[in-house]
């Protein structure tokens, strides 16, 4: 015969432990206060572009088309030729990283062309991020890559050939993780 104290204790424990979600194979303690995220709401936010090109939208653009967009949307901050001022320089410096005065630009420093597409689409121009169409982002990417000598002027950049572009500094990055120490 259990003592009254133990019986009350067991009752309290039973009342506090909620019934498990019997259809879930994982630990039944998770309360799951969120809800299912629909494909549509994910698609509205999922703007990552991976280095292999996953996530690139339909569309295309040429350096000449991009030059026209650049003149209107970008030159006032990045310079007419992408030379910078007051915002970062975008063009030049290829091969300068080991020199006494390295110039870090899209062409000389960025390892992936997909990063350029990703960043333009999510963050540029500064005063109206997200306002560029996919075609405009392809065109601007093409313009900047051509100005940096990475692609020929007649290229029509799209979801297939953009991830195949090999940036000059593609092999220029090392991961601190692989070294097993922060510094």
């Amino acid at each position, binding site marked *: 015969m259990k003592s009254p104290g133990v019986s009350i204790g067991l009752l309290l424990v039973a009342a506090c432990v909620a019934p498990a979600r019997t259809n879930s194979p994982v630990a039944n303690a998770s309360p799951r206060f969120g809800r299912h995220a629909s494909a549509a709401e994910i698609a509205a936010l*999922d703007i990552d572009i991976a280095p292999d090109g996953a996530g690139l939208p339909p569309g295309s653009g040429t350096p000449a088309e991009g030059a026209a967009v650049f003149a209107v949307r970008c030159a006032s901050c990045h310079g007419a030729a992408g030379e910078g001022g007051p915002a970062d320089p975008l063009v030049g410096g290829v091969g300068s990283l080991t020199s006494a005065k390295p110039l870090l630009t899209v062409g000389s420093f960025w390892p992936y062309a997909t990063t350029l597409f990703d960043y333009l689409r999510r963050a540029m121009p500064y005063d109206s991020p997200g306002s560029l169409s996919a075609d405009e982002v392809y065109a601007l990417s093409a313009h900047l890559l051509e100005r940096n000598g990475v692609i020929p002027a007649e290229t029509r950049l799209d979801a297939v050939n953009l991830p195949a572009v090999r940036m000059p500094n593609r092999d220029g*990055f090392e991961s601190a993780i692989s070294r097993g120490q922060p510094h």
Partner: protein
Amino acid sequence: MRDSPRGYGLPAPQESGVARIPYTRTPGIAPGAGVSFTPLHQLRGRLTPSGLHFERHHAGVPAVDPEQHRLIIHGRVREPLSYGVNDLLRYPLVSRLHFLECSGNSLVNALPEPQQLSCGVIHGLVSCSEWTGVPLALLLDEAGVADDAAWGIAEGADGARMNRSIPLAKLRDDALIALYQNGERLRPEQGYPLRLFLPGWEGNTSVKWLRRIELARAPVHSREETARYSDLLASGKAQQFTFEMGVKSVITHPSPGAELGPPGVYEISGLAWSGAGRVSRVEVSADGGASWADAELEEPALPRCLARFRIAWRWDGGPALLASRATDAAGARQPERADWLARYSPGGEKYHYNAVQRWGIAPGGGVANVYA
């Protein structure tokens, strides 16, 4: 004349000079992209008042509606999940005391000439708060992370939709979805209504106004982990994914902005921290590093949290060169500036600066930034 009780208290009017120091590099074209420094030289203890916590924004502070905002966890998961703020507030909320430091803190000290700025402006992109939120591991388990996922791509709802690739191991370890700071809800400039918080890691990775985490097999190599926040080494290669902030310390009193009075006994006081864990030792020198003495570290010693150190010093009124040097529990010690610089290319952005700081004391009590 006595004031009445009021709803939200503010400091005494005589303290109105204690404030963050804002700075925007290109205010004409990018008004929101900038910083505000914590005035370390005006503060004591180890905690930073929420209104003085440093800021660093790439695209200003967005006004995020907590009623509409959702956190979505998706990608390589069994089921993608969406959480509202009120959903998250129902979970077990844990509280941790941690520093947050911008990866670019102290970068002016990489310039060839020591800049004569206040201690806060030089080192003030570091602050310390009690962060309260949901352990992210709990939410990741609800979504069910796939075996081949190794990274979480965290993205914010700011104008830049700033994104960083975070190793899954860190997200499972001590990552928080922070909703409260120092007892009250996050300030807007600290990520209201919710942010990712990664103890000990460079501040950029604690994504503010977090809107989604995508579980993935590989990093996306975003602009913020390639063009930015990477260290151009002396070899010409760039080191990326240097997440953990190194062991570091700075004397806050005396310092530029907290000058000395007449000769006599003073308490040298400062802050020390490490992204690797606890600070185990702080040494202080008054002769520029020729001799060192152990400072007292205030209890409790907490991992990845600011520690206050202090040591008594009799100043004879003559020139002196103060320095502090911290060692963490993992055995790492702050490097000298020349050794730190030697690792990196003279070009490129400077991040992760944690070299020893020297302050030159002049007769009369003035304090200057000095390189060894």
